[in-house]
């Protein structure tokens, strides 16, 4: 008995317990849902068979059905635009603001904290606020633009099929900048000041310092922020639900919202699973790139 307590306290038992907890958590909350989702994508699933494993297998039928839908390509293209533009803009703005707050001026850390306000607001509130800002007839944005004399007729930010997606991207960029900014600020703070001083003495300009010191030393942070940005952007759901419901006519629909519509509005759960399987595949690829880029960092 004493032996058992001892192994447990400072021997193999304790290690096993710790690993067991972590592994158990991963199996229950990550591996199982992933495998279950993969399984459902090959089955005919409806609401009532959701809880049982005994469901008819339909092979690749769900995948064929999704691939034959005419809305697939437009929605795919929307998703690419949504993720691409959002991540690039969030990163550049976040980086710029982080560098700005790195400058020494009164209240710089305070003001940086205030920037997080948008990020900590509940998604539902964010959606409601943006729907007031972007409303076509009485929206704040149209009011401001027409007062400034920039537009003559109202722009229907959310109901014009050529504009709706970009309006959501705009709102999403706003939502993601604070997070990017904070993570990059942490990285910037970690770059030793004397490196810059040495470079300055050698006559390096600000631009040269940025490209030869800041960027290379931020490599790991940038990799992390880009990967997380892609993942968070693929998770973005509330803005679509609050602003356009993917409309008009799917012009602002993206994979994550389409998957939800199929599974929980149409009850075509197998089809919804197909889309999440495809998205998981993509996220795994992104995560792989991320892991590779940080491993390189550790080795060097």
């Amino acid at each position, binding site marked *: 008995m004493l032996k058992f307590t001892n192994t447990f306290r400072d021997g193999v038992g304790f290690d096993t317990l710790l690993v067991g907890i972590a592994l158990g958590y991963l199996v229950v909350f990550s591996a199982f849902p992933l495998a279950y989702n993969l399984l459902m994508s090959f089955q005919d699933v409806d609401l009532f068979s959701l809880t049982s494993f005994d469901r008819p297998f339909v092979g690749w039928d769900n995948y064929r059905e999704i691939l034959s839908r005419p809305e697939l390509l437009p929605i795919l293209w929307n998703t690419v635009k949504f993720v691409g533009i959002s991540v690039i803009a969030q990163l550049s703005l976040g980086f710029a603001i982080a560098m700005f707050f790195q400058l020494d001026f009164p209240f710089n850390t305070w003001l940086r904290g205030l920037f997080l306000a948008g990020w900590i607001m509940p998604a539902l509130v964010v959606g409601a606020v943006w729907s007031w800002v972007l409303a076509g007839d009485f929206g704040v944005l149209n009011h401001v633009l027409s007062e400034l004399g920039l537009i003559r007729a109202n722009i*229907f930010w959310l*109901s*014009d099929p050529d504009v709706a997606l970009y309006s959501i991207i705009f709102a999403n960029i706003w939502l993601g900048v604070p997070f990017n900014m904070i993570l990059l600020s942490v990285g910037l703070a970690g770059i030793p000041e004397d490196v810059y001083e040495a470079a300055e003495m050698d006559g390096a300009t600000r631009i040269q310092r940025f490209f030869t010191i800041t960027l290379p030393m931020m490599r790991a942070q940038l990799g992390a922020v880009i990967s997380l940005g892609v993942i968070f952007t693929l998770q973005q759901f509330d803005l679509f639900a609050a602003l356009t419901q993917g409309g*008009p006519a799917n012009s602002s629909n993206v994979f994550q919202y389409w998957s939800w519509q199929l599974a929980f509005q149409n009850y075509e759960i197998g089809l919804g699973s197909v889309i999440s399987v495809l998205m998981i595949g993509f996220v795994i690829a992104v995560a792989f790139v991320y892991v590779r880029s940080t491993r390189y960092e550790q080795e060097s």
Partner: protein
Amino acid sequence: MDMKFLGVLTVGGVALATAASAQQTELDLWTIDDPGEYHYVLAEEYMALHPEVKINVRTVQLRDMVNDLARAVATGDAPDITYIDNPEVALFASRGLLMDLTPYIEASDVVHADDIFPGPLASVSYEGGIYGLPRGANTIALYYNADMFTAAGLDPDQPPATWDELYEAAKTLTRPDDNVYGLAFSAVATEEGTFQFLPWLQMAGGDFDNVNTAGAAEALSLWKQFIDEGIASRDTLIRSQWDSTGTFNAGSAAMVISGPWELPRMMSEVEFDVRATPLPMPAGGDTRASALGEGDNVILASTDAPEASFAFLEYLYSQMDRVWNEFGYLPAADVEVVDPKFPEIYATFEESMQFARNRGPSPEWPQISKAIQGAIQSSLTGQASPEDALARAQSQIDKVVK
């Protein structure tokens, strides 16, 4: 109240007089109401009348009802009685999850199927059985701002009765310089869009399983005209009925198509003369139609107290004449409403109710609805002609309705 059931209860009561708690029947009731609304109020009243019955009322959000119910059925935790939305009766009935009330209704002194209006009755019927009792109903009509009619030189006593008249009136009432639209409605890509469009389709001779008709194309072209010509806001494509009606209440639209659920807010907000008229019909048409909303009280097939559950449903049904004044929806059966609130508007809705038609029935209703929404949205945005959009919707619907 079923006398036989009373008898059973009385005998049971005597036999178990020593164990007072054992004779209580417990019924679980799920509802979308909050405390103070229909199910809570009537359950309280029923328990006061029948101390031997205890009703546990639980609120479930409307959007979660189908999912929660399906899960509860799968795990054996289903309630005895629940409220479900009209188009979903077919989904649950087709799976044999609802109790067929036909034999109970035949034996009942309170419920007579003939009294229920055809639309609501169709909504609880599935393949020959009656699977629920409507708790009430709602429908849509055309609200209009009579003051704006007068100001624009239109006669508020002659509201538009045909599609052409609606177009002409809406065009006359539109004043872009004052930010006033002639008409507001909802073409949003949700069930609400289907709800608004279906009556137009049905008035023109189509139905949920027959959407590719000339009349439907005409209706969609008219809707497109409303938006393209600035008679209705472009945001009609993303606005719910509630939000569209908000613009009418604020004086930014001269007419709006919506239902009686708007009245409490409308009557407290508006400062003009509001009137209502049934939905306009296509020129020369003779088929009237209107949307059918609200839902039904159903008994789950898994209940262990079918008699007690039906007795409660009978009580709910017997209070149908109160739903307009107290709970804000229309009676779904032929009952006399004494001294209705907003009497003129009530008369319009009561008339429209006679023509209200069910959405479906089909166990695959959400997919049909999605196809119809797709047709509405792709033709209103100009991505497809109304004819092509409807043909595509028809092929999607044909896959579901065999």
